[in-house]
């Protein structure tokens, strides 16, 4: 993507860009993580917490043993899937912000299996099918809008997130509601749950579904013609079209693949996370909210590569699991607010290399958006020469 950075790009940015992209990706990530950890340490020190003790708690809580590893991987599972949603569309040259909404739809669809009985296993597979169909269906509308009307997928997917959130709340409160417990939906029966892998933790077989999805996407993107076309269209749509690639098809394909993984992410939460196996409309979905957005950060840290995403999700899951422990471990409890600031610093630092790499694409998105707005009249006139 950096190759197409035009003369419009500022010299400074180009310099930073070249320096950063010149490093080996793994080295680059380690450097970024180090910077993030140092910023986090400085912040904790400034507010009177002992950074070393806190980081020790984080490390212990994330990777200190089998229980901790299981907690980390359990948290990583849905994030792998929503990260795939974002990354497959980035590979196709688009910014699909809609994982959150597609994930909500997938979760609601999966809960529908509570309405009927089936043999174990088959019940689970039917639920997953429901979820991936719902996720894909929810991603189709922004894709079609983009292809037929040129609607920016950034805007349409963000809007669709809100529609999905409120629609899911409506479904959870009025349709799939548990009559005896109005705050939550029906409970997914045992026959449709992912079995727990490590007793006494949240770690279930859903993890393998996420890994499987990542491997499948890797295979599709790098070892099939369709994947080649998707990536080619992402690198340079004009050249791809000249080369005979139907860009509209690659857009639809990447959106559908993204919708499927996001839908499955919703399913892994409601079908794989003890103890409730339900969604809580009465708490505005504390268990689902932000999984789609966190997935975007995981995708950035994982360089929008399926294998990178698996590695990044282990880091993210670790930050989450370790962050819980930081709150009470030893003589230096760190309140959740500070834990989240530190996590934010680490994640931000680690996302920066990929963010910089995406600058040209983000910029062309913005320019296209402004051009569209200008074509349709008033609001853009203020932006002037942007």
């Amino acid at each position, binding site marked *: 993507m950096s190759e197409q950075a035009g003369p419009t790009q500022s010299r400074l940015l180009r310099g930073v860009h070249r320096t950063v992209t010149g490093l080996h990706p793994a080295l680059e990530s380690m450097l970024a993580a180090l910077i993030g950890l140092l910023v986090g340490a400085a912040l904790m020190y400034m507010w009177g917490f002992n950074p070393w003790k806190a980081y020790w708690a984080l490390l212990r*809580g994330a990777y200190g043993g089998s*229980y901790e590893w299981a*907690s980390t991987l*359990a*948290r990583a599972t849905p994030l792998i899937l929503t990260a795939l949603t974002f990354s497959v569309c980035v590979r196709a040259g688009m910014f699909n912000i809609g994982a959150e909404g597609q994930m909500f739809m997938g979760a609601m669809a999966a809960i529908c299996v509570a309405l009927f009985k089936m043999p174990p296993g088959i019940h689970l597979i039917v639920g997953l099918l429901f979820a991936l169909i719902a996720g894909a269906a929810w991603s189709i509308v922004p894709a079609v809008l983009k292809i037929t009307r040129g609607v920016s997928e950034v805007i349409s997917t963000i809007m669709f997130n809100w529609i999905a959130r*409120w629609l899911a*709340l409506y479904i959870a*409160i009025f349709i799939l509601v548990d*009559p005896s417990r*109005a*705050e*939550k939906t029906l409970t997914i029966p045992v026959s449709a749950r992912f079995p727990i892998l490590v007793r*006494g*933790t*949240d770690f279930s077989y859903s993890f393998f579904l996420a890994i499987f999805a990542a491997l499948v996407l890797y295979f599709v993107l790098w070892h099939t013609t369709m994947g080649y076309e998707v990536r080619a269209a992402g690198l340079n749509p004009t050249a791809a079209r000249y080369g005979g690639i139907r860009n509209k098809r690659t857009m639809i394909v990447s959106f559908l693949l993204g919708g499927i993984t996001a839908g499955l992410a919703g399913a892994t*939460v409601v079908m794989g*996370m*003890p*103890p*409730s196996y339900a969604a*809580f*409309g*009465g*708490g*505005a*979905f*504390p*268990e*689902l*909210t*932000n999984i789609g957005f966190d997935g975007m950060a995981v995708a950035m840290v994982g360089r929008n590569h399926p294998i990178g995403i698996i590695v990044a999700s282990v880091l993210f899951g670790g930050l*989450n*699991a370790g*962050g*819980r*422990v930081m*709150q*009470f471990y030893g003589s230096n*409890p760190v*309140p*959740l*607010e500070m834990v*989240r600031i530190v996590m934010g610093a680490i994640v931000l630092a680690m996302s920066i290399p990929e963010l910089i790499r995406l600058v040209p694409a983000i910029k062309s998105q913005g320019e296209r958006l402004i051009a569209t707005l200008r074509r349709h009249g008033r609001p853009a006139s203020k932006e002037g020469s942007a």
Partner: protein
Amino acid sequence: MKRLLVVALVLTLGLSVAGLAAGKVAVVLDVGGRGDLAFNDMGFKGTDQAAKDFNLQMVEVQCATGADYLPNMRNLARTGEYDLIICVGFLLGDALAAAATEFPNQKFAIIDVDYITGPNIMNFVFRENEMSALVGALAAMSAAQHGYTTAGIVLGIEIPVLWHFEAGFRFGMDWGLKAYAAHEGTMPAVNLLYTYTGTFSDIALGKAASEAMLAQGAVGIYNVAGPLGVGDLEAVTEVHDNAGTKYGPPYYYGVDADQDWMGNGMHGIASGMKRVDTACYMAVEAVVNGTFTPGVTSLGLAEGGVAISKVRDMEEFIQYGIGAGQIAAADAPAITYNWVQNRLTVADWIWDAVALLEQGILNNSIFVPTASTGAEIATVRAQYTLGAP
């Protein structure tokens, strides 16, 4: 003499507990988290107070997402160091039920949940309908006094716990209107406006809902959505700023904590307090005294679990606010002054009538309906329509 002995015994016991091993208590909060000036902060306050009084170490664990509920409880219980783990909020119910089965030797307490059975769990629930009835009666009567035509409640997500508030408020308004008719001779027409905003976090939605109600002539807004009260109060304050009025209607009715001090005490006239702190304190006290009793403890007016805010509550919460850095000590007298001035805009006999209703509930001569299911709230809504379906 006997009493002296008991006191001495309790003191030595208390000291020996403190001396032997300063125990540990943990409080687990759900995703709402601290800073709501209501439910979660009250949970913290009560546990913190108990920890100080009984010389225990306290840790607070919040949840960033719903996926943290059970892991947080497991993490704490696994250490085996905690004498008691208090879970604040009904959303933690399922996770606690699982954790309590996995760790049978760990004592737990939970607020707002009544369905978890087990020898190691105390469930605390509140009869929110009782204090909401008092707030409703106050709102209806003061609306009639000032010629307002409606009174508003801004609620959070439509869950059974919130139906208790709504049912009580409806009954209270109805009772208040009848009391007004008995006193003044004419039946006033004051209607109810209520909105379930669907959120316990979006302050802007609270403000928007309040503005809509105030535009329809609401005498005040009863906040039943924790932090949304900040937005409710903002809307009320703007009405006063635009009209150039200082005290009087529209009023703000706080919830959970005594929120009367918010906004310098200018418009918060009374709060429907749900003493989550009392429940947390009771739980810790029970563990310390060895009187831990599994099952459900229901707290109402009679137990001091719910109340309408009074002078002593105002003092307590101003002190607490100063301690927490939310109120500057120098502002305290002005806040109290404003609050008293604002309260004086409601006729004395109305305050007496509210006190009468409180007495009636306390001595069981007045029964306040409640609702925990969709069918029950439908019945209450049908019985006390108040112009609102």
